[in-house]
Every structure is written in structure tokens, then in C-alpha cells.
């Protein structure tokens, strides 16, 4: 089974499988409309996407869009505090990041920053609702299950490497708070579970998901599959059940066997990396996620998300001690993110890999929600700061935040949009909404902006009503003047 011929055979079958899968839902661009010339073929500038997800609400003023620094001292007024860190220069002229992100700053000549992202106005703040919106482009609740952006990509592009699942989500466990809400968008929705995420909650054990079960030798694994096949083909059901049902079952089993038994599985094995590389990335699960994402992107995964785990009041969700905790969060992401960019650049993969770093919204010390639409405060912030635990950005702010982008056709060194330097630090130039972000990703991947499928008799688009537009200014070679 493991000679070259069967591998080729396998690739052929996988091709047929994805083809037949493609015909199960009604694609928006079908044969019937082929006489009409409106479908233009888009030239892709990227083959895969890595989303570095800063779950919990990352304050832009504390990270990639620093404002006036007000050091901690007892008695300082909350309203004076815009940033709790000094700013540091990056490799790009006039671009400054907050202290603790110098490594990422050093690779900004290879990417771009959007400084004017505006989250949706969903009223009273709920992280998972904004996360749902960010990942699906639809505000919950929806009357049909909206697909994750990764599922759209998996559906439209299919696997670039037949043995690597196209959509892989890393770093998030589903056993803690708001887990049901988290599951609601980690889903292919109506596109069907075939396009759903391959979940790797802990990247350091990623290999376990793609090799024979723990304690099972390869020999035993092969013998077991042989037994299964012998038994299945001997069964009288081979003459009964419908062909398509039987084939779908047998094919899926074969695919799974091939993946688990294939040399490609070692892509998931972080121990293949030299120790110093491993150590560079290893700031924890997030860092190792970046390392695995690098390996997967180089080997044909389509959409990989690496999340700093979301748990209420943990991670970026700083309801107090914001300053202290952000030091830790920056240390968690700074080195591995920068290394990921450098490694992909050196290996030549950066050109065809789009990397995005984003969060569901930002934070502020005073404002909850957005200016003019203030919603119920979820954190008590004293007017005068007496204790360090009140020093930081503890409220949820939806009117401006940063998104970093690298590779996949993104202009290098670009700074797009800006936020006000005084509170409220809202987006004041080229405001960007989620529809544009999604369409920019689809644009890079060559997925038509009006891609849609029919569900319950109506068209469901990648972005609501198919109206989203990509930000074309993000793409191109030249630096901004």
C-alpha cells in the first residue's frame, strides 16, 4: 500500500473526491450562467492564510498604535492614561509600536498595518459575539449557521496538499467559559462539516491528531485497516446500501488511513525542528502554534488559525492589572510572530502566504463600547488610580483597533488608516470594517467577491449580500510614499 503507485492512485482518488464534494451544494457560479461573461477569473496573490488571533480584545493603544505614555504613579487620573508603555521605533520610518513588541516591529518592512479597524456596534459587549462576527462576517444570531472564513476557503480552494486538512484551528480549547458560544463559529455551518476546522487545541501535541492512536504500532495500524477492508468487502451490504453512501464511507476511511499512514504526518511533528528554532518559538502554546503554522503553511494547508486562548478575564481580556498582564501577553507573541515572518520570508513562502494578526476589538481605560453609543460598563474603573491593578486598559472599545498583515501580495511597509491621538482613540481615517477584511483575504486568494451558495432557497454570500469590497490599496509591491 505504501509504494509510489498507490500514492499516485490515492492522489487521483482524492481529486475525484473533492470534485464530487463540490457538486453537493449548488454553487453560485454554475454552468447555466457560463454564457454570461460576468465571472472574471481572479489572479490569486496568496495560496494560504495564517490568522494570528489575539482573543479577548487587544488594546491598540498598548500594542501597535501607541499614544501618549503616562507612567504609573499613585493618584494619576484614569482619563489621562492613554498608553501605559512608552513607544519604540520599528524598522519602518515614523512607525512606532508599544514597548515589548520590538521583534514584530523589526519585520514591519515585510508587511502592513491597518490602524483603523472598526468593530461592529453590537450594543452591550460580549466577546464571543464579536468573535463570531469577526470570523464569519455575520452578526449572531443568524437564522442559518454561518460558515467560518476558514470553511469558505476550504470549500472554495480545497486542500492544496491532499493529506493536509485545508482548515486547521489551533490553540483554543472548548472546555472553559463561553465554550458553546466559541463552538458556534468554529464551524463550517451550512457548508457541511467536511469543511469544518481540524482542531488542534494544543499544538505541541499536534502530531497525535495525525498519527495512529497512541500506543499503536504502524504495523498494527496497517493490519487493522486490512482487516477492516477484508471484512467490509466480504459483507453482503456491498450489494445493498446505495452506492453513493457506501462509497462516501469507504472513501473517507481510506483518506483517513492514508493521512495517518503518510510521511506527511511528520509535518505536524514539532520535534523535527532544530532545538534552537523550537526554543525561539516556544513562548507557550501560542508560540508553538506559530511554529506548527509555519510548517503547515509551507506544506499546503489553506487556512490556519493560531489563537491566544480565549477564556473570560484571561489573556488579552484584561479587566484589571492591564499593564502588568500586557507585558506577559507581549512576551507571548512578540518573538514567535516575528520569527514566523522571518522564516517564511527566508524560505520564500511569504510571497504566497497571507498572515493576519487581529483581535475582536480594542480596549480603553474609560470608554466602554464606542463614543456616543456608550454601553453598560463591565469594569469599575476609579477616576483616580491608587493601585497598580487599575493601571491599564480594562474596558472594551469597539471604535478603533489594529490589524497587521504580511505576505500574500500585501504592500510592504504600508500604514493604512489612523486613529485619533487623543481620547477617544477612534478610527479617523479610512475606517475599515470586517466585510472589507474578509474580501481582502478572498481577493488575495482569488475567490470571487460574490461567491455564494443557496441555502433554504436564498443565496448566502461570503460577506452579507455579497456587498463587501476588498481594500485594494493594501495590495501591490511599492512602498507608500
Amino acid at each position: 500500500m505504501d509504494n509510489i503507485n498507490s500514492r499516485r492512485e490515492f492522489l487521483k482518488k482524492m481529486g475525484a473526491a473533492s470534485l464530487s464534494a463540490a457538486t453537493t451544494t449548488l454553487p453560485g457560479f454554475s454552468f447555466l450562467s457560463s454564457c454570461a461573461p460576468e465571472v472574471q477569473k481572479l489572479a490569486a496573490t496568496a495560496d494560504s492564510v495564517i490568522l494570528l488571533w489575539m482573543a479577548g480584545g487587544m488594546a491598540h493603544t498598548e500594542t501597535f498604535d501607541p499614544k501618549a505614555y503616562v507612567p504609573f504613579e499613585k493618584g494619576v487620573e484614569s482619563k489621562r492614561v492613554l498608553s501605559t508603555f512608552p513607544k519604540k521605533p520599528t524598522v519602518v520610518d515614523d512607525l512606532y509600536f508599544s514597548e515589548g513588541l520590538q521583534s514584530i516591529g523589526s519585520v514591519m518592512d515585510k508587511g502592513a498595518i491597518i490602524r483603523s479597524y472598526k468593530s461592529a456596534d453590537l450594543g452591550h459587549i460580549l466577546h464571543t459575539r464579536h468573535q463570531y462576527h469577526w470570523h464569519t462576517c455575520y452578526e449572531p444570531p443568524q437564522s442559518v449557521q454561518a460558515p467560518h472564513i476558514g470553511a469558505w476557503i476550504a470549500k472554495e480552494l480545497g486542500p492544496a496538499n491532499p493529506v493536509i486538512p485545508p482548515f486547521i484551528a489551533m490553540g483554543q480549547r472548548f472546555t472553559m467559559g463561553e465554550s458553546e458560544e466559541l463552538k458556534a463559529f468554529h464551524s463550517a455551518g451550512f457548508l457541511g462539516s467536511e469543511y469544518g476546522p481540524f482542531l488542534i487545541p494544543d499544538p505541541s501535541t499536534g502530531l497525535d491528531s495525525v498519527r495512529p492512536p497512541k500506543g499503536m504500532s504502524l504495523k498494527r495500524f496497517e493490519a487493522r485497516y486490512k482487516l477492516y477492508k477484508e471484512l467490509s468487502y466480504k459483507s453482503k451490504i456491498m450489494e445493498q446500501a446505495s452506492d453513493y453512501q457506501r462509497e462516501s464511507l469507504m472513501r473517507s476511511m481510506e483518506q483517513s488511513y492514508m493521512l495517518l499512514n503518510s510521511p506527511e504526518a511528520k509535518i505536524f511533528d514539532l520535534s523535527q525542528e532544530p532545538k534552537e528554532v523550537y526554543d525561539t518559538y516556544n513562548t507557550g502554546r501560542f508560540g508553538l502554534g506559530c511554529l506548527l503554522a509555519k510548517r503547515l503553511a509551507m506544506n499546503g494547508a489553506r487556512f490556519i488559525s493560531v489563537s491566544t486562548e480565549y477564556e473570560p478575564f484571561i489573556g488579552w481580556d484584561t479587566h484589571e492589572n492591564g499593564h502588568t498582564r500586557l507585558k506577559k501577553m507581549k512576551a507571548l507573541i512578540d518573538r514567535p510572530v516575528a520569527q514566523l515572518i522571518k522564516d517564511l520570508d527566508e524560505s520564500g513562502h511569504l510571497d504566497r502566504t497571507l498572515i493576519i494578526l487581529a483581535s475582536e476589538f480594542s480596549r480603553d481605560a474609560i470608554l466602554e463600547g464606542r463614543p456616543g453609543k456608550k454601553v453598560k460598563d463591565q469594569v469599575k474603573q476609579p477616576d483616580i488610580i491608587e493601585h497598580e491593578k487599575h493601571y491599564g486598559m480594562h474596558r472594551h472599545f469597539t471604535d478603533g483597533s489594529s490589524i497587521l498583515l504580511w505576505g500574500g501580495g500585501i504592500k510592504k511597509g504600508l500604514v493604512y488608516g489612523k486613529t485619533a491621538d487623543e481620547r477617544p482613540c477612534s478610527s479617523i481615517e479610512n475606517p475599515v470594517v470586517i466585510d472589507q477584511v474578509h474580501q481582502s483575504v478572498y481577493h488575495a486568494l482569488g475567490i470571487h467577491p460574490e461567491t455564494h451558495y443557496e441555502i433554504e432557497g436564498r443565496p448566502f454570500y461570503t460577506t452579507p449580500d455579497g456587498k463587501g469590497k476588498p481594500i485594494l490599496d493594501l495590495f501591490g509591491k511599492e512602498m507608500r510614499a
Partner: protein
Amino acid sequence: MDNASWVLQLLGRLHPLLVHFPVGLLVVAFVLELVTVRGKQKGLREGINWMVYIGALTAIITALFGWLLEEQEDYQGSLVESHEFAGILTAVLASITALTLCRTLRGKSNSLLLYRLLLTSTVVALTIAGHFGASLTHGEDYLSEVLPGYKDVYVEIEPVGLLTELEASDSLSTIQKDKLNLKVRGLFAHKCYQCHGENKQKGGLVLETKEGVFKGGDSGLAIVPGKPDESEIYKRIILPPGHKKAMPTKGKPLTEDEITLVRVWIEQGSHWSDEALKVFPEAALALTQPELPKNTSEQHPLDKLIDAYFNENDIAWQNVIDDRSFIRRAYMDVVGLLPEPSAVKAFIDDTDLKKREKLIDKLLSDNQNYTQHWLSFWNDLLRNDYYSVGGKKPITRWLYNALMNNKSYDQLVTELINPVKGSEGFIGGVKWRGVVNASQIPEMQAAQNIGQSLMGVNVKCASCHNSFVSNLTLNQAYDFATIFSDSILELNRCDKPIGKMATPNFLYPELGSVEGKTVKERLLKLSKVMVQRANGRLYRTITNRFWDRLMGRGIVEPLDEMDNTPWSAAVLDWLSADFVDSGSDLKHLIKRIMTSKVYQLPMVNYKKEEELKDNYVFEGPVTRRLSAEQFSDAVSQLIAPMYPQVSFNPNGDDIRAIRIWHLEQEFGNVVLPQPGRRYFRKSFEVLKKMPEKATLLITVDNGYVLYVNGKEISRNTNWKEVDKVNIAKELKAGKNTIAIIGDNGGEIANPAGILFALKLEYASGEVVLLKSDTSWLSFREKPKGDWTSVDYDESHWEKVRNYSTGNFKNWGQLLDFTFKPHSQKMARASLAKQHPFMKILGRPSRDIVATSREEQATLLQALELTNGAFFNDILEEGAHAWLKRYKKDSKKIIDSLFQSALNRTPSKAEENIMLKILGEDPKPEQLQDVFWAVLLSPEFQFVN
């Protein structure tokens, strides 16, 4: 128009005439050329040459005239451009072909090959140009609409009949005027709504409403009653297609008859009928009462109907399946479990002619298993689950009891619509914190869910704008939703208020009024309106769903679109009427279907899934894949219990103990406990007269050691097991102390908790219950001294935390956490909360209604089944148990596995394959692999 241009215009209009010359000449030349290949039929040469020359010449002229036509008459659009390009290309290619031919004939080139290739390309270009041209004049779907499978969703407008009728009469009656108006409006719907509906309003024109039609648009009055020539609509529809102002701009132009229809309507004064326009086919609400066919030898009413259907469709009856297959199918369908081998044997040996019916009765009367199987169907349909996203209220207990008592369907619906205690959740809806889209307010969700689940009609589209796929309007959706609202709702189109208020009304107002001052009054009326017999649609919808469950494909598909045509209206309506007559007894419906011969037919083999979609002809049942719950339950039955914890325990006693653990914090926030040991204490008083019985229940995630008054009583490292211990002897009058070492396993922070209950029963009848709660104390480090003793100084210990609430509430209930006898062997999957394993096997998250499950096997599924630790651990656990039970007798194991999993004995060949793996001295891992191969085999995976 100036003087010169009429000539040009005339020439332009000659284009459609001239076009036939190059088409005819060049194509025939091409055909004849083919005949002459390899030097045959030499006599044709001269003729071909002339055809090519004249063909090329006329192609050039045609292209030129075509260009004139485009310029003079303002043709535009992408189709015109494509036609133009292909036409010019044809002319150019034809000219080159002619020149090449000329050169070849003059001997300047010695091969006909180049010329022939050119001629071929010319004909290809010509065909393409011709196709685009024809699309321009006949409409783009001229060809595709006659293809099999092409479905025009609208009701066909046939103006001819009406026109003849109108011509025959001198003056029109009101009825005729109504008819005429509805035809014209149907035509508008067909041709114009796409741009000129309330949704889009292009050019300010809305043809969907009376006001809109008579108001007109930006270009003036659309309709001037009595004067077609002044009516903008009429002026536009008579323009040649492709003209800048011609209407419609999309799709086929209007036919002569359709144009006449509009003209006559305007001439006759543009009467407007009060009747509502039904553009899409709509199923009648009432059930027809089909007669059972008489000339048939079949006994069962369903078989009589199907016999007639089979005759009509030329389908032969197959023999019914054997007893072995029948019992497995019946068990899976009624109780969702595998039959025990002994039950299979007894059934086969039974000589009673009515044994199949008896079996169905027996299974249907197994209320508990019937309920725990069908619960999944109802949970999907009513989007009920054990957890809540966005504050949705579970209706589990109410639903469970309704199924246990076989509550009639009309009563069930009554209580869902007009809630009793426990059933409020269905119309309650999901409400996420914050602001939601107008089409997703809870009242609208109620309207959508009742529409989809109970009535088989899609309200979702119409809750945002007038539906594109049914007759439902935004107005109707809001009228319906307002029934559930404390205040009258304002209509929102695409999330924007339009200043119009709704009036409470059911989707089908003809069924009766639902007006009332309060929500409660309206719900009462609505429930009555809905369950009345006249609302046959309610009963038809559920009948169709049950047919789908038992036969693998609905009589109407999709199941939620009950306006679609059934493959047999007689079967559907007879069965629905029979169901109503039974007092809408759901078990009666199941029995009626299952006792028929039709149910007992062998599965039909379909090559492709598409065969089950359009143009479906019923031939027999369709194989179904085991659902996530059926598969899980079968594994629990055969191998080892899959889900130790349930989210709803119908048989548990209501102890309400909470999970407690040492309070773990990070930056002042409560977080998941770190791995390691924590220490717990709880002291309590015992009366002087000692209790007769003292029983405690304990389970600790992940393990524990329990001390009572300093003495170790029990320990366990399996949190799935609830230990029940009698400690009467350990107690003494006065103060007693429970002390526990709790051990949280794993390598990173993860849930941990002690679940504890102690029941003291005194002779006086007094019962004291002591539970794990927040009055317990805990300590982080190993305490110094005799910390398990009663007298230990615990003053420096901390209060424990409740780890059963808020972010930590994802605990299930262990079935055995009860003082009742521990009798249940396994928890049914339907009672367990959503599990990653079930999710991947297709159990939906029930945030929204899900009325069918994915049947397709996927790679992610196969991976979970092949290497998922969860499933493999179950197999391993089972392997150990089986080896013990069968004392490592391989043959016995194989036989028993086949009997219990596949309900048959293995063939000799199968036995040999298995024996090769297991050998004389089977190891757990070998048996584990054998389990795996059998459970994953198609024979096990499908209900056949």
C-alpha cells in the same frame, strides 16, 4: 430622427434576415468539405468554393448591418458585446478562409489543410455568434428551460386561454376583470419584481402593490387607465429587445400574447382586484381525503395506495425483508438500539403470523427507550439543547414527559405555541447580549421556527424583505411575529424601519383570527387556529417528517418546504388524515407506516445522491446511516458505555449537590484549577439517637481518598464511577468530620470537582441530607498534623468555591449519582450534552432548527473514528471486559460479536479472517482492532 438615418436603420434591421446566409452557406460548405476529405466526391469542389466565397461576403455584410443595428437602436449590454465580438470574428475568419481557399486553388499553396482548419474555426465562431444572437432575441434561457431538470419556480402565466375568453365577451364581468388583473400582476411578478419590487425599487417603481403601480416611477405614470399608449409600462414592453429603454432588461422579452394581455388590461380601465396574488405554487391547507384503491389485492391501506402508485410508474413489488433484517430495522427505528441476540433468535423462531406487528407494538410500548431515541429528533426539530447559547430556555423535561406519555401531536403543538410550565423555551428564542438585527428579534425567531418546524414554510426570507422564493411578504412575517410581542412591532425592511405597524395575524389568515389584547390571549387563539383539522398543513408536515425518518426520504422534499409537490399526494394526505383521525397519535403514525409492506421492502440502491432529489420516483426505502446517537448507543451497548454523564437524568433523585474545589485565582479572577492535590474538610452533627442508615455518594474528578473521622473509607481514581458507601458504623453522636484528598490530574489547568452527598436516615423518619456545597473548607498544601481528625484546627482553611456555575458549569450528571439502586448500564447519547465525538458524527448544535442531518461521511469523521483518543479508549476498555467475560475464547468472542453487532453469525471466511488476528490467546489490543473493524464496516454503519 434625421432624414438620412432611416436608411441606416432599415439596413440595420435587415441584419436578422441576412444572418441566415452566412449561417446556411458556411455550415453547408463545412459539411460538404468533410465529405470531400481524402479526395472523395471531387465533383463537389466547385460548389463548395462558391459557397465559401458568398458565405464570406454575406458574413461581412451581416456584421456591418449588425453594427448599424446596434448603433441606431441603442442596443447595449454584455450579451450584445459578446455577440458583436463573435460576429466580427466570424466575418474576419470567413474572409481569411475565402482568401486562403483562393490562394490554394491558384496553386500558391499545395495543401487544403490550412483552409480546412480555417473553415472549421469560422464555423465554430459562427456557432458561438449565432448562439449569442439567438439568446438576444429569444432570451437566455430559451434552450435551458426545456432541459430536464430546469425548474421555473413561478406558476406559469398562460395568457392565451384568458385572452380568447375575453375576446368572446362584449363587456367584462368583475370576475373576468379580477382574473385579468391577477394574470397581469402575475406577469409583473414574473418579469418585473426582480428590479421593480418592494425590495429593489429601481427607478422608483414598485409593481408589487396597487399604490406603486398607479404612482408610477421616476419616468412618469406607469399606467394611464384606458390609455396603453400613454402608459410608460406599455410603451417600454413593445420596444424591440435590447433597445436602451426596452423592458424587461433581464430575462426573456414578453411574448405577443403577454403584451396583448397588458394592453387589454389597461384598455379595460386597469381594474385592481382585492384578491392576494399567489405567484408561487402553494399547497392547499386542507387535507384531501383520498379514496383507497379498490382493485388491489393488498390489505394494508398504505400498500393499496402504493400498489396503485407502482402500477402507474411501472414498478414491481420486491419481496419483504427477512426476520433478521426486520428486527434490526425495527429496533433502530423505534428505540434506536440494537436487538439482543436472544431477542433476535426468539423473534425468528416465533411462528406467529402477526409477529412483526407484535414486535412493533412491543417496541412502541417500551416508553423509556422510545422516548430516549425520538428525543433527538424532537430536540433537533425544536432546537432544544441542554446548554444555552444566548439565554435560550431548555424544554427538555416537558418534552421528555410528553414523549413518555405519548402526548397527542395537537396537544404537543398547543403547548409549544401557548406554553405551559416547562415548554416556554420553544417560542422564547435566543437573545444574545447586545443589539440584534431586526429580523432576529426573539418574536421573529418564534415566527421563523414555527414556520419551519411545524408548518414547513420558510419565514426566514420574509422576515427581512418580501420573499423571493414564496408568496410570503414582509408584512405577513411581521403580522405573525407580532402575535408574540408585548407591543405591536414596526416593520423593518433589511433592518431599517419603514414606518408601518403590523397587525397580529397568522401566516394563513383564512384559518381564523388570532387577535387579542394580550400576548396570552393571542397565543391561546393561535394554538387553536393551528391545531384545527382545517390546518391540514400542520399534520402533513409532521407526517412527512416521520415518513422520512422511517423510509429515508420524504414524500415532499426538502422537508421544510411543504409547498413542493409530493411524489404521491394520495399517500401523503391519506396518511396525514389517518393520523388526524387517530387523535394525532404519533405512535399510531409510526405503527401505520411500519406495519405496511412498503416499510418492509429491501433498501433501494441509488447510484448517486442526485437520484433522490429532483425527478424522484419512490421504489422503496433508502438506506440510512446510523445517527451520532444511534452509533454511540450501539457502542455503549456492545463495547463500553460512551457517555458516563448525562445532562438530563430522568431517573435521578433531585440531590442538587454542586461540584466544589479549592478556590483558584489568577489576578483576582477565578480560573481553572491547576493539576495536583487539594485537601477538603466538612464537619457535621449527628443526633444522640444514631441514624439507622448513613449512605454516601462520592465522585471526584480525577480521584480521591475519603476519610470519616480520621479513618480511610474509600478511594477511587475513576471519576466516572460514583461510589456508594454505607458509613453508619463510622459515625458517632456529636461532631463528625468528612475529610477528602482530591486529586486533579492532567498537565495543564483543567476542571476538577468533588461531588458528594450523604443521607442520614433516622428511625423517627427524619432524613438529613449533607451535600458538597460552599460551606466546605479546603487547603492548598498538604496540611500539617492529623488533618483528617475531628479535632483538627481548621481555622486557617479557606472556603471552597462552587465550580458548577458560570464558566465552569459544563459538568454533566452521572447517572449513578443517586441513592436509588445503581441499575442503569449506560447513559443514552440523547441525554448527554453535545460531545465532540457526536458533533463530528453529525449531531447539530441546536442554536437553530435542524430538520435533517448530514449523511455524507467526511475525512474529519473518519479521522476521529480512526485515531481519536476518545473512541479508542472506549474500545480498549471494552476489549478488557470482553476478554474477561469470554475467558479469551476467540471463537466465542467472534460469534458473540457478530450476533450482537450484526445480528447474524459470521461466515466461515469472516471467522477465519478474525481468527487470524485474534489467535489462540487474544490480547486486548487485538480484540480492540477487531471491534474497530466491525464497528466501522458499512454493514454496521447503515440501517438496512
